[in-house]
């Protein structure tokens, strides 16, 4: 695999734009404080006093999308559209609504992941149907209950007419979107794709994870990568990379910010038939090995792992063990979720955006172990699902 990343678009608790992400890595502790410092609008303090969640604070859809046409879009859709606008502008493809490069909308597709994207809207309409009457379901809101609606709206808003694919592989989706992108570019079904995805904090999601005992509530310790962590904190966000063939990027004089060089994936089922959840170090090792092999590099060439460590000790321990097995115990490991919480498919997308920032000169972090060289050349991004599914992607300096 050898594909050019020519633009990055980000919507995160740290703000809109890849620049906010780069700044965050200069001082991860301060960034983490900012990410969790806002006044909650989803998990209101009065109702959930113990909750710590990182929302996209102060997001104003009117500022980002204008004052018309988005009233019935859900939050994830708005984030994705803004991330898409940001990536297209960063890649020099669009200025505002206008296409300003040879890459017109008919050549650009979308490979977008989400894990729980339509959950918010399904809940909203279920409440209406159950507590009022199904006849009061707002038909204009109903499309939001369909998983691929958010990605579909990205194409509509940005007039992108090449293939649009939604990928739902839990936490692994945004990395699996890289495989979709590579596949469709190889078959010349498009010349470029927005690749990434997002997820949002929602009340049912919080309640579900709390019920499972997965949330570090109140003052309980939250420390991704540490055995002492008592669970995770929810976060949200969306990110897209603009990905195109290297030859295409060079031909249009686009800035190549990083190269996507490898993809690997694995599934490792739990041994007990009745179990569903599974933290698989073997899966992590196999996915990383696959990505490194696909990149055609030695494991020792990896400068830092952009991990999916989120604060759930069994999963974090398995991930670290899998990293050790594939890359050796000396490799540096960063845990960006320690800054903005667990955002599932969004985390994978933010992880890839982080890797591009590191390759561009931002210091990798926050590190849970190891040292990084002064210049970052190769990053492996890992996404670990809850069912034994794992994916990994290698990004490299151009």
């Amino acid at each position: 695999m050898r594909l050019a990343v020519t633009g990055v678009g980000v919507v995160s608790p740290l703000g809109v734009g890849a620049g906010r992400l780069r700044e965050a890595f200069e001082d991860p502790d301060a960034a983490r404080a900012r990410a969790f410092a806002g006044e909650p609008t989803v998990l209101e303090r009065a109702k959930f006093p113990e909750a710590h969640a990182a929302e996209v604070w102060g997001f104003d859809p009117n500022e980002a999308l204008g004052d018309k046409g988005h009233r019935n879009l859900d939050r994830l859709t708005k984030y994705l559209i803004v991330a898409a606008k940001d990536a297209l502008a960063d890649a020099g493809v669009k200025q505002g609504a206008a296409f300003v490069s040879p890459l017109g909308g008919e050549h650009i597709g979308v490979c977008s992941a989400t894990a729980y994207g339509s959950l918010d809207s399904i809940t909203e309409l279920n409440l209406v149907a159950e507590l009022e009457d199904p006849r009061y379901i707002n038909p204009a809101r109903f499309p939001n209950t369909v998983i691929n609606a958010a990605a579909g709206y990205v194409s509509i808003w940005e007039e992108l007419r090449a293939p649009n694919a939604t990928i739902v592989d839990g936490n692994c989706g945004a990395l699996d979107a890289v495989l979709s992108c590579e596949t469709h570019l190889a078959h010349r079904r498009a010349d470029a794709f927005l690749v990434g995805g997002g997820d949002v904090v929602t009340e049912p999601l919080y309640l579900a994870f709390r019920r499972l005992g997965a949330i570090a509530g109140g003052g309980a310790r939250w420390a991704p990568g540490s055995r002492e962590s008592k669970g995770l904190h929810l976060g949200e966000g969306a990110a897209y990379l603009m990905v195109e063939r290297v030859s295409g990027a060079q031909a249009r004089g686009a800035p190549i910010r990083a190269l996507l060089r490898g993809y690997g994936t694995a599934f490792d089922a739990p041994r007990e038939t009745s179990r569903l959840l599974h933290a698989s170090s073997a899966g992590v090792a196999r996915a990383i090995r696959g990505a490194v092999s696909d990149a055609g590099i030695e494991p020792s060439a990896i400068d830092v792992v952009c991990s999916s460590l989120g604060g759930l000790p069994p999963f974090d321990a398995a991930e670290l063990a899998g990293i050790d097995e594939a890359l050796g115990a000396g490799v540096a490991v960063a845990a960006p979720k320690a800054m903005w919480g667990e955002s599932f498919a969004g985390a994978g997308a933010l992880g890839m955006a982080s890797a591009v920032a590191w390759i561009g000169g931002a210091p990798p972090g926050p590190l849970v172990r190891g040292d990084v060289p002064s210049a970052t050349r190769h990053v492996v991004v890992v996404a670990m699902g809850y069912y034994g599914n794992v994916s990994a992607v290698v990004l490299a300096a151009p």
Partner: protein
Amino acid sequence: MGRVYVTGMGVVSSLGFGREAYWSALVEGRSGISEVSLFDTSNLPRNLAGEVKGFVAKDFMTEQEARRMGRCSAFSVAAARMAAEDAGLTSRELAGERTAVVVGTTMGEANVLGELQQAWIHEGAVRSARLPRYGTTLLPIHVARAFGASGMVQTLPAACAAGNYAIGFAADQIRAGRADVAVTGAVEILEKLEYQGFVRLGAMSPDLCQPFDANRKGLILGEGATMLILESEERVVRRGARPLAEVGGYGLACDAHHITRPHPEGEGSITAMRLALEASRIGPEDVDHINAHGTGTSANDSVEAAVIRAIFGERPLPVTSIKSMIGHCMGASSAMEAVACVMSIETGIIPPTINYETPDPDCPLAIVANGAQTGAKVDVVLNNALAFGGYDAVVCFAKPGRLPEGAGEVLA
């Protein structure tokens, strides 16, 4: 690189289980539409669906397996096990890293979520053991676990085009050398909120699904699952399997027009169909039959007819919509239709569009009306899907060896 073949198919449908039962019913023109029994529709002005009745998960899996999954995953595993048996494959032959599982859907385990939300709304609490069963990503994972497969597990929720997306993508992965064999297809279940939402959209017919008919009144929702076994040519030859059909190229495009309505001129759909032909290295004259998306809604059918005319002109190419019999199985629909495409190639029979009474001047197509068409050459078939979100996907299936070398492969 090389050809990719369908070697087995499994079906869970309102017309029966397994490809033979399903196919016989389609050829006979039987309707799978009946009154909904899965949930209460008494407060709605519609009560029909292509509901799968008589499905018992434990007929296809152990009790322990059945306990850990919802209806949607159970359909998937049942269809996958039938497909493997149809292909003459044991679980051991599908185990390992070289087997990919790629599943399409629209809503995934919607009933698991529905039950959780009912409990949350009305009882204020949910059982924690039930929570992990919700996750659309579980669809391929349960299938992979059924065989001990440990390669890629991917879910592609591409609404009503999900089956075509999954089948095309799985074939791509075999051609790219990322897998030797794929279990792929799509699944959808009827769920209360989805049903209520379609009623509120005003998209549902009160009585019949009548694709391309002048008096069509809308779609009727359905459910089901289809899984296909796809194998590389090398593997098919090595194990002496009988290929049922070849998966040719496929075309994708996005309307980027409206979230629920097709582009009025069918721009994306035309592009997808052209790309499917190009990727299959054939021209319109090579196509013998189109299995249409044909939902029975006013907008879909007239646009789809215009798209077919734009590509094929006035040639009386046989077109059918089996949604007239099984309803619109949403994410599963194009996979359910893929079985019909393959069986038409196998048998030379094209199943009918039932309930076709009055030709619509806006849909000037050679509809296979009310009775199966037999005796015609059916070597190359296009499976058409126009989906929610502006997703357009067309897959070409062909008699083994009928397509030129290089069909479906990366374009030079």
